């Protein structure tokens, strides 16, 4: 069956060039980077090169890059690590209502420990207000974590402006840039951030590997303890192949960004236009302050999982903020934060494009989607069309 993968925000396939870069580190150069002998030194060199590559792209220093097991761990390390490190200075944290669970759940854990967390709301466009942030800042605020771009609705947050204020107020600034890499500028100086999270598998790298940028001078309480790896900030034998893959994926994403993004954006725009022809359909999140590969719409009167499975039967892979797809009983907290009623939030569809999608695929989706929506609506007790 024809398959059309439109779930690049969930994960991507590993690119040939990335896998090729990784392969030597499984069998030939398999040493433990902590070992003194040649096998170990070879692994260490690969780590050093990868770290240099990542640092350069982020406009950071070699020593400011920590490799982790993914975006989730990077967020946990940044947030819990900084909160625990600087709790003498204050116990107030700021984040937004639309963060990924990998930010929200560490925040909730810290609340249980006695920290106070302000969850900034977003406007109906899905954007955090710089002013709201400024008003939320207290004397005991030690850390703010706002994502660079949202994973569900693709909205881009004013990180540089928030970071500037944070710096002036002596507050550490973290951003989860998992979704923006390859699409937006991730220069840590331009963004005014002290901590920045990356994940390889969203940019055609392998799953299970990520990075955390930690600005020089910022201390973090390690979350995983053991050996002296990663400058004692993250213990465990380094995943050499994965780290090499992360660096390669980042390098390619960065190098090709200018060429690939306009192509993706054009396809996305055409797909979005077509979808919005379907009646009772609305775009979630800002039309302009938005990742160029993201579509997130609500089809009234229908439920997301049913829609996804029907699309899946046509070979089309998307995602939904429906409760039924999240393992919880609530629909997406991001859609609710936009002010959408529950029943509409259940009917959301996210389609996220990637570098290999084609015009023909977009045609195919635009051919399949409207009849599916219509059929589900005909089955829906809410629809009187």
């Amino acid at each position, binding site marked *: 069956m024809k398959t059309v993968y439109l779930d690049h925000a969930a994960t991507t396939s590993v690119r040939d060039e990335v896998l090729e870069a990784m392969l030597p580190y499984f069998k030939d150069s398999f040493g433990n980077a902590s070992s003194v002998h040649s096998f170990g030194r070879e692994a260490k060199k690969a780590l050093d090169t990868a770290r240099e590559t990542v640092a350069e792209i982020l406009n950071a220093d070699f020593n400011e890059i920590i490799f982790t097991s993914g975006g989730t761990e990077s967020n946990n390390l940044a947030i819990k690590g900084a909160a625990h490190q600087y709790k003498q200075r204050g116990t107030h944290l700021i984040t937004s209502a639309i963060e990924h669970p990998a930010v929200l759940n560490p925040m909730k854990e810290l609340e249980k420990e006695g920290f106070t967390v302000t969850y900034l709301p977003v406007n109906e466009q899905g954007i955090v207000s710089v002013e709201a942030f400024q008003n939320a800042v207290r004397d005991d605020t030690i850390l703010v974590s706002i994502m660079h771009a949202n994973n569900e609705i693709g909205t881009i947050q004013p990180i540089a402006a928030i970071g500037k204020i944070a710096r002036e107020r002596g507050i550490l600034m973290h951003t989860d840039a998992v979704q923006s890499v390859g699409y937006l500028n991730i220069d840590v100086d331009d963004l005014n951030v002290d901590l920045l999270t990356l994940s390889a598998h969203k940019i055609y790298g392998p799953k299970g590997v990520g990075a955390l940028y930690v600005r020089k001078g910022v201390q973090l309480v390690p979350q995983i303890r053991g050996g002296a790896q990663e400058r004692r900030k993250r213990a465990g034998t380094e995943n050499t192949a994965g780290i090499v893959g992360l660096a390669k994926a980042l390098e390619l994403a960065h190098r090709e960004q200018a060429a690939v993004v306009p192509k993706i954006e054009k396809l996305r725009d055409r797909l979005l236009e077509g979808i919005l022809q379907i009646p009772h359909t609305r775009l979630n999140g800002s039309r302009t302050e938005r990742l160029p590969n993201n579509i997130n719409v609500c089809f009234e009167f229908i*439920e997301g999982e049913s829609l996804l499975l029907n699309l899946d039967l046509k070979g089309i892979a998307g995602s939904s903020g429906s409760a039924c797809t999240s393992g919880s009983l609530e629909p997406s907290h991001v859609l609710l934060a936009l002010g959408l009623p529950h029943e509409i939030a259940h009917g959301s569809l996210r389609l996220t494009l990637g570098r290999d999608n084609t015009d023909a695929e977009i045609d195919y989706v635009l051919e399949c989607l409207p009849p599916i929506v219509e059929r589900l609506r*005909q*089955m829906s007790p809410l629809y009187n069309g």
Partner: protein
Amino acid sequence: MYSDKVMDHFQNPRNVGEIPDADGIGVEGNARCGDIMKIWIKVEDNRIVDVKFKTFGCAAAVATSSMITELVIGKTIEEAEKITNTAVAEALDGLPPVKMHCSNLAADALKKAIEDYKAKH
């Protein structure tokens, strides 16, 4: 994730629609939670001779709705009242644990339709 039977009923739901002159109508669930089932029954001589449904919900909700219409057709009111959620789930070769709550919908909606029928007759 879903059994073949669930997928079959999801893809080809039986008895979708409405019965304009239904003898009983039941609604269960609410849109807030993402699942609503509405069921129409036609009763003759204490026996359910026709049944239709409409469902807003996930594949499990659609499949249980469809399955219960198959189970109930031709049954007496007393027999139909005895259909449990578990029986519906079993008839579908089981549901994923996280989806078990969706199977509550169908039997409960049917019960309400029967109550509605009884109240009117």
